[in-house]
């Protein structure tokens, strides 16, 4: 894709009389609602195929490996490792302007699925493959699966 690298300047403007920007809350659909509900109840889940036992995220209606529609939810152990991460120095959405710089990471659950997340409580330097542990944190009422160094 082409870049459009420079985020709109207006995003970083802070104006006193402007209302606080709204959290870009997930829009759960029929497929993803159980995943978000699980987080709300304190567990991170993923899908496992009943036919080929492949495990995946994000929620889908068919197994992306064997295309079977037969699958179950499983609860993740919460153990994971860091695949990669970036640090935002520009806010593409006004909600995140106040927390710059902030990280977004790809993490791999020990059960296999990979997902986007944030790394929290990272005092030292992040490094790929470092072990992580699940921390469910609430953001504007939404339970988000984040990770901290294990």
């Amino acid at each position: 894709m082409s870049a459009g690298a420079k985020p709109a300047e207006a995003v970083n403007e802070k104006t006193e009389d402007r209302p606080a920007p709204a959290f870009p809350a997930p829009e759960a659909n029929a497929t993803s609602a159980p995943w978000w509900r699980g987080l709300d109840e304190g567990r991170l889940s993923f899908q496992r195929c009943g036919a080929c036992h492949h495990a995946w995220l994000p929620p889908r209606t068919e197994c992306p490996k064997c295309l079977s529609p037969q699958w179950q939810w499983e609860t993740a152990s919460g153990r994971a490792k860091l695949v990669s991460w970036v640090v935002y120095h520009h806010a593409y959405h006004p909600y995140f302007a106040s927390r710059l710089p902030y990280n977004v990471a790809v993490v791999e659950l020990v059960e296999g699925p990979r997902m986007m997340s944030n790394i929290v409580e990272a005092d030292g330097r992040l490094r790929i493959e470092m072990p992580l542990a699940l921390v469910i944190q609430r953001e504007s009422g939404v339970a988000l699966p984040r990770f901290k160094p294990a």
Partner: protein
Amino acid sequence: MRGNVVVAGIGHTAFGKLPGRTTISLNIEACRNALADAGVEKDAVDALLVKPPTSNPQFMYGQTLAEAMGVQPRVGGAWDQGGAANISLISFAAMAIEHGQCEVALVCYADNPRSGSRHAYEKAWGDDAAFGWFGVPAGYAMLARRHMEQFGTTSDQLGAIAVAIRRHGAANPDAQLRKPITLEEYRASPWVIDPLRRDDCCLVSDGAAAVVLMSRARAKHLGVSKPVPILGFGQGQSSWEVAQRPDLTRTAAEVSGATALKMAGLTAKDIDVAQIYDCFTITVLMTLEAYGFARRGEGGPFCAAGSLELGGELPLNTSGGLLSETGMPGLQLVIEGVRQMRGQARQQVRGARTCVVSNQGGIMHTHSTLVLGQTL
């Protein structure tokens, strides 16, 4: 079919900020210029293939353009594959010509994100917006970080790519950005999304480009002055979003490059000049590894050794690429490849007989590769 189809004409608009122009108008200008370059009348066109504008996708865009151009093509339409679509459309046109489905094909692209909407490049990635996951540069930054951590690739090595391409762009009077940078200036360039700096990121540009394709025999019959043969092409699709991709430092550019080089009967060692999709510096580095110009993980030292400069091992993006000539995705790289093979480039690589061109889209999701040969 190696060499049976040629690029007979090239054309483009000015690059930069072109307010008040529709993408239809920009496409028509580029097509008009390409037809004039080929010396072909519009009425000869029987295939019109277009990459839809990224910043304003429209239903049946190919037919809207055909109507505005007053052509009723046998083969026509739009193909969405992000930035890989231009070369993919060229390869589709080449196959259609080879098999008698059409005779004279126009492949074109126009967009106006600079004076219009940049939303396509800044939007959220679905529900992951909750983590602050926004924008195209972030995906490439995620690949770059993994490459750096896994192989020891450095920011300075990415900087060497930006320095080389910006120097080439500075010598191109048509380039949108004609300001060369030093490595020191690169280092001082602010982070956009660490590990990518502003100077790792391509331009945002309005503009259009077009090429005319036909059989070698037809070009000879018409007396086309500098037909450039298409020696090979290929595609590859990585498909998975960044988080689901099993290996962040390998992409289907490997498949795309290998397919094109095999068709051309060449290896990376046989390539004299390259036009590699440089939406971000890391894209160049990873594509060069995928094509076999450097071993996996060794793209950084290859780029930092001056290989990409004129006179280097693989002169790259000789008109300035997306970092300097125009951020318009992809087709201008094909056009510069054609100029090099005609021996008419402003910064001509002396004696260049082969050129590889890469297009790619998404976050290195889609890839297409073109191998061009010296003019007939």
